[in-house]
């Protein structure tokens, strides 16, 4: 339940008086994601002093410095190690890691699977725009096969990662996928991820019209949004698709959800065990 109208939520949390204008391109999905995140945070009722936003490097990593929480803009790929240390040192904090696709599953891929396995109580939000936007649109580990980028001029020949599925396999207690077109659903999935213990992740399919779109036939932000709309299928309907069809689609909704204690709860239990001895 939102206590404020959306417009005022943005005003409440943006560092609009000290750190704007932002660096994002017109039509980028990052702003849509950030708005949804702020509304979801407002719904959780956490005080902003309790919230730590940890970001990596890349276009979306800059989100941390635009918002008035405790914010830590780390090194490329390293948001999750920092977030793990913060959460383990002070479990009272709500720790949110914001990463891009290159950040989370290329250079930070090892950290991601271990954060999932460890089930550290961090909410990871991975904004997947299928390329390295900040450096000019190069191929990333999520670039679809065949897609053209400055480092795959003839079309990528590699299989992409599906981030939310990767997290589910690696042991995350909650893993979901949303798009910047389905903005209400994205907000509610982020809210769900924030509302639970253990490692929770939402992969947000986003648009980078400046590079990915421009290189792959979607010349305008609107065309990219239309693509998100047409190629999305909810998880329950996706079950009926063939593996070949699934590969082409964005499967949205909750991919995995398990009731297992998070790392901080288990660690606390071992401390209590030692004290009782």
């Amino acid at each position, binding site marked *: 339940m939102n206590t404020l109208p959306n417009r005022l939520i943005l005003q409440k949390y943006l560092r609009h008086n000290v750190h704007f204008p932002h660096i994002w391109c017109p039509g980028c999905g990052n702003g849509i994601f950030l708005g949804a995140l702020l509304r979801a945070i407002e719904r959780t009722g956490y005080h902003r*002093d309790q919230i730590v936003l940890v970001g990596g490097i890349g276009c979306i990593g800059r989100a941390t410095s635009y918002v008035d929480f405790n914010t830590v803009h780390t090194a490329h790929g*390293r948001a999750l*190690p920092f*977030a793990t*240390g913060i959460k383990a040192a002070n479990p009272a*904090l709500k720790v949110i890691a914001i990463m891009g696709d290159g950040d989370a599953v290329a250079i930070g891929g090892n950290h991601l699977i271990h954060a999932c396995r460890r089930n550290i109580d961090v909410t990871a939000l991975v904004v997947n725009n299928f390329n390295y936007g900040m450096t000019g649109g190069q191929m990333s580990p999520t670039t679809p096969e065949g897609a053209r980028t400055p480092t795959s001029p003839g079309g990528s020949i590699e299989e992409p990662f599906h981030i939310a599925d990767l997290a589910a396999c690696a042991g995350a207690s909650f893993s979901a996928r949303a798009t910047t077109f389905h903005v209400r659903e994205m907000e509610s999935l982020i809210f769900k991820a924030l509302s639970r213990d253990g490692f929770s992740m939402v992969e947000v399919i986003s648009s980078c019209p400046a590079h990915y779109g421009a290189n792959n036939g979607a010349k305008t932000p609107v065309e990219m949004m239309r693509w998100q709309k047409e190629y999305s299928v909810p998880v329950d309907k996706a079950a009926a698709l063939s593996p070949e069809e699934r590969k082409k689609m964005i499967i949205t909704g909750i991919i995995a959800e398990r009731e297992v204690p998070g790392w901080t709860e288990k660690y606390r239990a071992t401390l209590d065990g030692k004290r009782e001895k």
Partner: protein
Amino acid sequence: MEGPQAVLLQGNEAVARGALYAGMSFFAGYPITPSTEIAELLSGLLPEEGGVFIQMEDEIASLGACLGASLAGAKAMTATSGPGFSLMQELIGFGSGAEIPVVIVDVMRLGPSTGVPTSPSQGDVMQARWGTHGDHPIIALTADSVAECFEMTVRAFNFSELYRVPVILLIDEIIGHLREKVTLPAAGELAVKNRAAPEMPPEWYEPYAGASNGVPPMSALGGGYRHNVTGLLHDKMGLPTSDPEVIRASTDRLFDKMRRGFGDICLTEEYLCDDAETILISYGSPARSAREAVDALRAEGMKAGLLKLKTLWPFPRAALERFAGKAQRMVVCEMNRGQVYRETLRVGRGRWEVGKVLAPYGELFTPEKIARAVRGGGK
């Protein structure tokens, strides 16, 4: 436990106990020879004291977790050896730029690369200074005994808290694995320092504005002083900037805060140096052999002394300069191909002859080897 007790302890164990004495409440690490005993011991001791021990997926993650924990208010440490230390360089730069206290123990083994896992070396001296990219301040300390491992670990935490800088403790494998009888200091015997916290109202807080000593007071995440921490060069609010004038102010301060502390940070010990014409310069386990060599040379009538470095970075230049015009010769004894030797040449600017006795092959230094080289003029 009543009063101080003598115990038989390994250098690595003394580091772990020194860290607890200094108030460390967070350790993240990755197993690597010859530092592993530190992690093993702390995995049992830290939880008993209510602290956090966590084994990470690699050394990058270990230092990242430590930096995160430090931002959350904990005194944090990691321990590694050369290969892991190489991986940590990225985030050592982050800690220096964002001014995050943290202690990194590097129990040095022979390199490069995987090298020889349990052969001693002091090959990481220059890496400790310049391993991460960009100009940055750093403190590196060392130790030549089990007792000093304890003492220098406490100092490492104190310096990192007082100056808000990563502090690297460089121990060679011999000292890390050496067992000696030591009397551990009682609580209160050694000073334990904590970072300064902001006292102004949160809306007045400028997280990267130096106090009168150049070191900004530090607020733990969640403490009500919300601000931005970044590896980008930043203004006094912690917000990214590319304005050369703002960068000048913020990065000059990083070096100024250290410069003001040189007298406090640069620790050395002199042995028979007052009338010495030849001064051996050494640190870590070779300093023990050098001391014996000084005794042997004195017995033969040579006016020899030992300047033992306990701080390597910032280089204790003033301690050497005291001997300009008095000693004719400095002979550096170290287990590498001359890393402090070059620094001694640089600082000397021709004011003294500089010789070296080196052991870069993973072998031990004998006092005889040093005495022979010094007698022979020192290569």
